[in-house]
């Protein structure tokens, strides 16, 4: 199996994210491997362990955005490649998918391409499907379980988590999958992996390396990032001597305010 897993570097989810003068800031919180992508990396490694092959981690980002890839290597990916070019700054998913698809083609002959369900920063959850469309591979998003995988027969069957419940879908390989948290429990990096990762020189592919010469311009623009309106609620504490009394008063207040 030749598996490509696409990862992104994001601020830790525990970070307090603020916006100052239009610039997003997450204080001194560390940049980490996008939490959803950890599940994708883990799934790639488990599939490799069962079926053999190799796992390549790909990430698109600025030149110093190596944390996510280092973490992927430390967890056990065989190689990591950073896709970085000043021309790639500020792209939307339409263009990011073009770049990633080109990079996946350059890696060559993938059987599976894995994504996390979304990134915790921009949180669109559509990049994987757009890559699939560009590569002409089927898109299977929100996968909670790989039910069966037959590399020789070129088939995969997965279980997906829809709003309405679980759904099983079968399709041909190569395919693009995005995975949800229920699929596995990501491993910690091993110490051996940490050593390998910290020594690794991560190759950087530019637009020229990928043969992307056209001017990429984002279709989607985000002219302004704002803080959500501060919810000015003055909490009204429901007092009472007993729980019953508090419950009664609460029900009464909810009715008075027409909440129920």
């Amino acid at each position: 199996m030749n598996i490509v897993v696409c990862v992104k570097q994001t601020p830790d989810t525990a970070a307090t994210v603020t916006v100052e003068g239009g610039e997003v800031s997450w204080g001194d919180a560390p940049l980490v491997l996008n939490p959803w992508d950890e599940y994708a990396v883990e799934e790639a490694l488990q599939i490799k362990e069962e079926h053999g092959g190799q796992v390549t981690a790909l990430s698109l980002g600025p030149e110093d955005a190596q944390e996510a890839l280092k973490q992927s290597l430390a967890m056990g990916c065989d190689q990591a490649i950073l896709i970085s070019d000043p021309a790639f700054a500020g792209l939307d998913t339409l263009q990011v998918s073009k770049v990633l698809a080109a990079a996946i083609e350059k890696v060559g002959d993938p059987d599976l391409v894995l994504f996390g369900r979304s990134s915790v920063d921009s949180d669109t959850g559509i990049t994987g499907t757009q890559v699939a469309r560009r590569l002409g591979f089927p898109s299977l998003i929100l996968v909670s379980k790989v039910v069966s995988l037959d590399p020789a027969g070129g088939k995969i069957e997965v279980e997906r988590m829809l709003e309405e419940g679980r759904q099983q879908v079968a399709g041909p390989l190569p395919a693009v999958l995005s995975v949800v948290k229920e699929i596995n429990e990501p491993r910690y990096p091993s110490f051996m992996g940490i050593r390998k990762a910290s020594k690794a020189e991560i190759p950087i592919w530019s637009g020229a390396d990928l043969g992307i010469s056209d001017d990429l311009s984002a279709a989607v623009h985000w002219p302004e990032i704002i803080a959500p309106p501060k919810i000015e609620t003055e909490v009204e504490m429901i007092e009472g001597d007993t729980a019953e009394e508090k419950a009664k008063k609460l029900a009464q207040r909810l009715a008075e305010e027409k909440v129920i």
Partner: protein
Amino acid sequence: MNFELSEEHSMVQKMVRDFAQKEIAPIIKEADRTGEMAPNVLERMGELGILGICIPVRYGGQGMDYISLGLACEELEAIDTTLRVVMSVHTGLCSMTLLQWGTEEQKQKFLIPLAKGEKIGCGAFSEPGAGSDFANIQAVGKRDGDDFVLNGEKMWISLATKADYAMVTVRTLFDTEKVSSGLTTFIVDLESPGITRGDIHGKLGVRAGSTGWISFQDVRVPAANMVGEEGEGFKVTMSAFDSGRYTVAAGAVGLTRAALEASVSYAKERTAFGAPIAQHQLIQQKIAGMARDYEIGRLLYLKAGWLKNRGERNTYETSIAKHFATDVSFTAASEAIQVHGAYGYSDEYDVERYMRNARGAIIYEGSNEIQTLIQADYALGWRKDKPLRCEMPAYSTEEWQST
């Protein structure tokens, strides 16, 4: 000078932090309440390689350096002291002492399973009647053919009931010029006939840990299990403490950090007199104190780790680090309770556990009074490090990572 952690060190730190936060933090309060070790702690720390972190790969370890050991201890104790105690006794007192003093055969037989976490080790040195006055321990070993026969009782032994092997020091020579020259150390299989052991209950802190006693009654130990030579036991034991104290120092720095972080977050949340209490100067003073102590403690243990990496003796530096870090960790935890007010006094919050846990380290692995005497001896020029027959080997990437 370079004060920056390497990428490798940062990743070690993150990995151990993730483990402790994800797997231990959610269950530690309950384990502390019931006084039972959190389930699977030893197995998980073994599987993840943490137990053998700084042991060379060819001896079953992970081949990381001594700084990594310290960073791991800091992260572990930031969640709970019991985790770090495992490192102190299993890795510090037992495995590292084998690494320093053990024969190749002993390393093959004992160090490899310890470093892999397949076996658990502890250090059985102190006794009901001898702690600080270690040279006067009462446990004895008498030669009988190819064996030594051990008798005596060891007390306040962490992991006494969980360990498979113990590093044990007893008296085997009785007419030496100095009492300390009569001691000898053995690596003992705790399944040997004649050994009974049990846990001590009613401890102030480290309640989710196992602390106990081991009693030896005519326990036959092969002479081949002697670690170091006969009569070298005092030196072997003091080397064990150089390793163990380092982990205690690093861990206490983690506890200080936990107290600081809990205080910072609470002080920003809680309001009094119309403002978050972080705005009040007397609270700021407490927080500044914790921050200062954390930074100082960290520099001290990292310097000791750096000396260890270079293969230089570090009894003095390690003593200072242990003494300082454990003293301030208790103060920090106590101040954190004060910052939390009445809530801090309840076990709904973690800080009261920090305080109970911090107290022990001021006593064990050489009480801070003993540390003071060690420091005074060095400062006055009365104590000079003499080369040991077996020094703790300097860390070398090549040697540690070759298979």
